[in-house]
């Protein structure tokens, strides 16, 4: 397969080290698109004339894998399409396949797509790529984000940032926009729907609200079309990838034709007929209406009215459907913009952001958490800790207490969703805080802290006040792969990348150690008089040990020594501060 860039022969900013170069990848339900900054402009990577890599994977009995166009060619093995729709529930039965002797999951299949894309990008750029900004639907929950990050890790890609798809599109359009008013992004992809309302000001592109549905997209239009034809002929079509692709093709023809003929071979009969755009529009109307309800919810959360919006931007291949364009125009009373290719605009934004993160940017993206996060309390009721559309990063704490006298353990159940009851929300993780000192009910104080980072990923810590019994979980190990599975995949799928990673960790530990030694030596030269002889020699010995360990090139030796010295130097630092304050 020949991979070619718009401007053959040009490589992105020559003489850059691999660490300075990062690509943007739009990992779509039906297609994957990549882009990179070249001479200050985002360039979408192309295969001949095509920029879209089908997000299709064919799994063979012998363990071989084909990705992209090669996977679509009629062949043996199992064809997997739209795997992204399984990422929100990546361990569910429908998201796991056993082919031959290999057990596949949504994460490992997605990793195959990313690995393939990474190789293709590397062959066209003629250099290794280690870093990327990868886009995800804004409405992806924590589990799906974690799963995406894991897939990238297996593929040997360090994710600089998980970027929400509508925000990425806004970045691409933002390059040409100078308004300070709010605008909406209506993003209907192959499998997911998102709407985001954004407002640019003071160098910050701020997401005011977002809403969506991770199970609503062009795929559902295809299904509606199949149902329509089944209804017309009073028959049932087999639910195979081939029929799905056939329906997708009919749908695409209907974007520019009033009526189209169709025919398909079933085992014993052949059915054929004509399909009009009116019939199709009627079939997808409930889906279109559903997107507009979601739009209204996002608007409500911003407390803005539709006429306060500057513009509405259409993103995602499914917004080519004329019924969508008409519906959006009627709903907002303004004609929507789509002058950038709706299939490529998300990748472009991701490429721009990849460049901005590695080279610095004038505009900062301030995104929000799409779905509320909370904890289960008595009676299965959800206590929301972080509400949807809160700007990230954010940290929120809540104090809980024990329910029974002498209770020594407390189960923390983390959920994501808008509903009141635990059973109606998505369970993200469950862990138990133990060793709470036995006390009368209601007197122990347990502080649970939710920390959401700029990728929208959650870490939960629980701490008992009196003993400082601290436990933390990185949500969500239960729904993605657990650590062991992760390591197994890393070992089998990318031995090199793993050793690269260890090398990188070693380098980081060495840099950190050298910094510490240097800083401490300087502090000692200034203020060693503040220490007694025993403490001084303890510090000097620990420094010497760490220095020697640097030659071992062994991270497991260096790390504990470095941490030890850090601990020792802490009380020295406190003495120095106290001294400085006395002096002043």
């Amino acid at each position: 397969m020949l991979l070619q860039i718009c401007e053959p022969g040009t490589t992105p900013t020559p003489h850059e080290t691999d660490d300075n170069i990062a690509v943007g990848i739009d990992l779509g339900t039906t297609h994957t698109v990549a882009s990179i900054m070249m001479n200050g402009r985002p360039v979408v990577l192309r295969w001949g004339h095509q920029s879209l890599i089908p997000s299709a994977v064919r799994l063979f009995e012998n363990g071989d894998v084909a990705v992209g166009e090669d996977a679509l060619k009629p062949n043996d093995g199992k064809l997997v399409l739209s795997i992204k729709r399984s990422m929100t529930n990546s361990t569910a039965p429908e998201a796991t396949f056993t082919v031959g002797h290999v057990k596949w999951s949504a994460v490992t299949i997605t990793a195959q797509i990313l690995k393939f894309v990474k190789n293709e990008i590397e062959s066209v750029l003629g250099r290794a790529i280690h870093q990327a900004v990868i886009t995800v639907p804004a409405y992806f929950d924590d589990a799906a984000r974690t799963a995406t990050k894991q897939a990238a890790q297996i593929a040997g890609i360090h994710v600089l940032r998980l970027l929400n798809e509508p925000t990425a599109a806004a970045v691409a359009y933002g390059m040409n926009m100078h308004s300070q008013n709010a605008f909406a992004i209506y993003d209907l992809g192959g499998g997911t729907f998102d709407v985001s309302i954004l407002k640019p000001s003071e160098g910050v592109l701020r997401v005011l609200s977002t809403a969506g549905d991770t199970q609503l997209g062009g795929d559902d239009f295809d299904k509606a079309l199949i149902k329509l034809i089944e209804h017309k002929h009073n028959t049932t079509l087999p639910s195979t990838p081939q029929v799905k692709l056939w329906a997708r093709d009919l749908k695409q023809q209907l974007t520019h034709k009033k009526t189209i003929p169709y025919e398909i071979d079933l085992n014993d009969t052949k059915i054929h007929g004509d399909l009009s755009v009116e019939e199709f529009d009627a079939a997808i109307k409930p889906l279109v209406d559903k997107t507009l309800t979601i739009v209204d919810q996002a608007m409500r959360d911003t407390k803005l009215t539709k006429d306060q919006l500057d513009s509405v931007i259409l993103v995602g291949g499914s917004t080519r459907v004329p019924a969508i364009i008409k519906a959006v125009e009627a709903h907002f009373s303004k004609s929507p913009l789509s002058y950038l290719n709706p299939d490529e605009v998300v990748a472009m934004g991701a490429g721009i952001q990849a460049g901005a993160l590695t080279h610095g940017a004038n505009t900062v993206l301030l995104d929000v958490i799409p779905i509320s996060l909370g904890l289960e309390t008595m009676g299965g009721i959800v206590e929301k800790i972080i509400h949807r559309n809160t700007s990230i990063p954010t940290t929120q704490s809540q104090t809980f207490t024990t329910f029974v006298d002498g209770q020594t353990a407390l189960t923390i159940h983390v959920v994501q969703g808008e509903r009141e009851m635990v059973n109606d929300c998505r369970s993200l993780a469950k862990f138990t805080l133990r060793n709470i000192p036995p006390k009368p009910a209601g007197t122990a104080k347990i502080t649970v802290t939710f920390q959401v980072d700029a990728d929208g990923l959650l870490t939960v810590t629980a701490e008992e006040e009196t003993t400082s019994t601290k436990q933390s979980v990185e949500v969500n190990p239960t729904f993605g792969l657990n650590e062991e599975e992760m390591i197994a995949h890393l070992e089998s799928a990318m031995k090199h990348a793993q050793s690269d990673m260890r090398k990188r960790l070693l380098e980081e530990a060495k840099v950190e150690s050298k910094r510490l030694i240097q800083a401490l030596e300087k502090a000692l030269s200034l203020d060693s008089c503040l220490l007694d002889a025993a403490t001084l020699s303890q510090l000097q010995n620990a420094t010497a040990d760490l220095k020697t360990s640097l030659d071992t090139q062994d991270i497991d030796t260096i790390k504990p020594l470095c941490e030890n010295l850090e601990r020792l130097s802490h009380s020295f630092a406190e003495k120095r501060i106290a001294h400085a304050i006395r002096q002043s």
Partner: protein
Amino acid sequence: MAAVNLSMSNQSKAATRIICWNCQEIVCQFGNCSSCHKLLPQPQEIDPFTLLGVEPSIDVDFETLEKNYLKLIHQFHPDQFITKSQTEKTIAQSYSAQINNAYKALKCPFSSSKLLFSMVFGQALDDIPDPAPVLLEIFELNEKRMYLTSIIQAQNFVHEIETKIDTAVGEYDAAITQKDQLKAAHFLKTFLYLFKLHQDVQQNLLNPSFDQAT
């Protein structure tokens, strides 16, 4: 550059001296180390008004709040530290969370006025029981609201509430100056209730279902 100056002036009072984690110099704890320019851990105990550089008031200056918030978030968002050391990434993460949370607290009159109350009196407003006169006023207004039958009546009701809000804010500010905790609690509770009622009634005015009731 302006962002640094702005924040420096707001925060210089609160900034304590610390030892830079990187170069070990003793420096002022705000923004970047004055010696090696690495990002320093930011003071956690700083109150949202000081952090965002707005006058502590029940009536927060939204324009200044918005402007200062965006400047700070632009400066300290984790995206600005992607290529920096792990320590700086961690600091940027926790500091920008602090900035976001402070903005959220001040953006809403409910949380900002409660915050101001606890800052002035060292006690949470919610820990003080509702004084009887407040409850009485609430009941009266609620009853009045139930008998609103036309848009005109509703609009007049909104004006009435607005006048009451102005009075409550004035009395509250006076109570703060006099350090009269009970009086402050009384008028703050009144204000919060009136504010909520004002929002609800206006929402109803925008809702076409009100028309059908006439």
